């Protein structure tokens, strides 16, 4: 039943047909079912007929089971993988414009350096930084920049990829499935 396990953060990777309206169908489904979604990002894969959607969502075990089933049911969704069941790498890129008046300029650069952020634009009163990282790193940087005054913030949404060498797979039987090529996925054939 709903609510019997704690709600947890999950990263779902979807391989979908690269067609008009597929993202709308997925977004509409998530909204209609009342699921919580933090982030979405979409892009083409090496095969331009397939797009990869990365969703960051929250739910307990019951909700997640339904959500994965519901997403799988969409005809244009080829495959759904819950990356959080395994070891994975997660990244997001942000562009942030921060106030940088003369007394603060050196300090901001120091912070940027520590976080391996790049200055991609500057004026006499602002810096624009580009930084990539996982959610906690981005959050930590933003906390440090907040006192200077953040003028503008743009985020790409989270993307994630499973580790090729899954040294610590929590569910070993899933490894093979995740490594499977898109083309090899069984397709429905009817005479």
């Amino acid at each position: 039943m709903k609510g019997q396990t704690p709600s947890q953060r999950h990263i779902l990777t979807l391989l979908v047909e690269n067609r008009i309206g597929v993202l709308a169908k997925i977004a509409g489904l998530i909204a209609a079912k009342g699921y919580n979604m933090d982030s979405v990002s979409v892009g083409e894969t090496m095969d331009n007929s397939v797009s990869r959607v990365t969703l960051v969502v929250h739910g307990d075990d019951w909700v997640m089971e339904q959500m994965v089933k519901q997403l799988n049911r969409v005809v244009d969704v080829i495959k759904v993988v819950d990356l959080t069941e395994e070891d994975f790498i997660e990244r997001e890129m942000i562009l942030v414009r921060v106030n940088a008046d003369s007394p603060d300029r050196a300090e901001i650069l120091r912070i940027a350096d520590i976080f391996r952020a790049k200055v991609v634009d500057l004026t006499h009163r602002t810096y624009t930084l580009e930084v990539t990282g996982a959610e906690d790193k981005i959050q930590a940087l933003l906390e440090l920049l907040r006192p200077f005054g953040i003028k503008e913030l743009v985020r790409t949404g989270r993307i994630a990829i499973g580790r090729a060498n899954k040294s610590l797979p929590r569910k070993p039987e899933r490894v093979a499935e995740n490594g499977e090529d898109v083309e090899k996925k069984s397709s429905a054939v009817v005479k």
Partner: protein
Amino acid sequence: MRFTGSEILVKSLVEEGVTTVFGHPGDVFLHGPDMLTDLPFKHVRCRHPQVATHAAEGYYKATGRTGTVVVSSGSGAANCVTAITDALIDSMAIVVLSGHDPAAVMGCDTSQEADVVGTTRACTKHSLLALKADHIPRIIKEAYYIARSGRPGPVLVDLPKDAIMGRGEFRGYPKDVSIRGYNPQLYGHPGQIKKAAELIAQAKRPVIYGGGGIIHSDASEEFCELVEITQIPTTLTLMGLGALPTNHPLWLGMLGMYGIPWANMCMFNCDVMIAMGSRFDDRITGKLSEFGKQCKVIHVDIDPTSIQKNIKVDIPIVGDVKYVLRALNKELRNVERNWAMEFEEWYGEIEACKKQHPLRYEQREGVIKPQFAIDMILRLTEDYDPIICTGVGQHQIWTAQVYRGRKPRRWLTSGGLGTMGYGLPAALGGQAAFPNSLVLNIEGDGGFQMSMSDLCTLVEHNLPVKTFVINNKGLGMVRQWYQRHSAHPSSQSDLRHQPDFVKLADACGVAGMRIERPEEVKAGIEKAIKTPGPVVVDVVVEQEEHCYPIISAGTAIKDIIDSGEPIPDKLIQGWR
């Protein structure tokens, strides 16, 4: 060879085996003017696109063949939305072909343009857009395959004018479909089926709970075999009626909020619940925290999302009910057990419940009780093996409670969405499929007024549907709920001014009759059935009648309400 898109479309539909389409034409009409006069299939032009779409649902449910709807762009297609939603929740295989302005001006707000693919995204199983005449055969093949396979559902195909009017190659209709993201699982997991058989073989107080999935997968034969082998008492949902003959000794009746008390008793007191093609809808479970706690649950469904959506399942089996039943029956046939003898105590409990909670209503002098009228209609037509259609509301519940049917695909009603006005269109679709069968439409006066415009369609296409309007001068089910739960009992639920249904029928060229007194009921029904052509019978019934028994929302079997006020003994009319 090069053809116009409309020619390619018609060729594709013929190849797909389409013999009847329901529709409403418009400016952006799919056939193209050249194809209108000489269609190689029957086109039933309705008076409203919603009616056409419900008719396609009725056609599908009655025949098992995918229903086809052809409508124009914008308002034409938007008018289908309610019926498409109805088809989605009740798993009706229909394909809606909607016209659209040329692709070049899509999104420019041209006359009668709407984003129909966008509008229907949430209420279709899938939607497709054909941008070129060449694409039409593949898209039509995919649409029909997706609509009919797996858990059936509605598919919308949007066809812009340039695809329809433009020319393209027709290299034959595709034989195969390959959709990499769509692969319905037909066969259940053998290990799970074995486990289910083992659990059933040990059950002391089991119940079989079947749903619409049995009808959709044409699995009635296998389902009846399961009942025969195991001798387990069996109940069906509103959508599953007909999967087991209602004269079968193990038939309990429909379950649920207004279900038969002993069917519900079995659900609440069983030790093993065998759910087949049903989805544990809230009208079945009532209070979730009290449902299915005492028993192990086996759930077979082709739609994985139906499993473990509302209740915890012990043995889930994803697969087509038909194939799973074949495998399960094979396992169970090998079980050595005297099933019936071991269930004697369980049967005894059912008999006791029948005595404790019989279906009853209060008989009164001089007025027609709706239960009486509906019971008579069903009794007097039973031997005709009729297709019975209903609207939504009290009349629907009463009909379902005493439904008499021996075969599947004879019961057309709107379940999940509860779409009022469903009866006449469904009957239209059923009768178009079976012109020589007796098709009954049992409707309420409220619902009938939502689709009565299509009486003329019945006349035009010579479809002899017999409509019985169970007329209580109001929205009975709404009134009942208000009276039970509100301080303003009749708020908006009385229909104070009604059309004269007899004159209305007459105006449409349909035979109209009225039955006002109990002693006229039998003769009136018989006369209606014998009258050739379509008939409308206005059955004037008691206004203040409520549907019983009730297990109210959020309660459980112990809270069952058998009747409103206590009925004096001499006025009790038992009816099942």
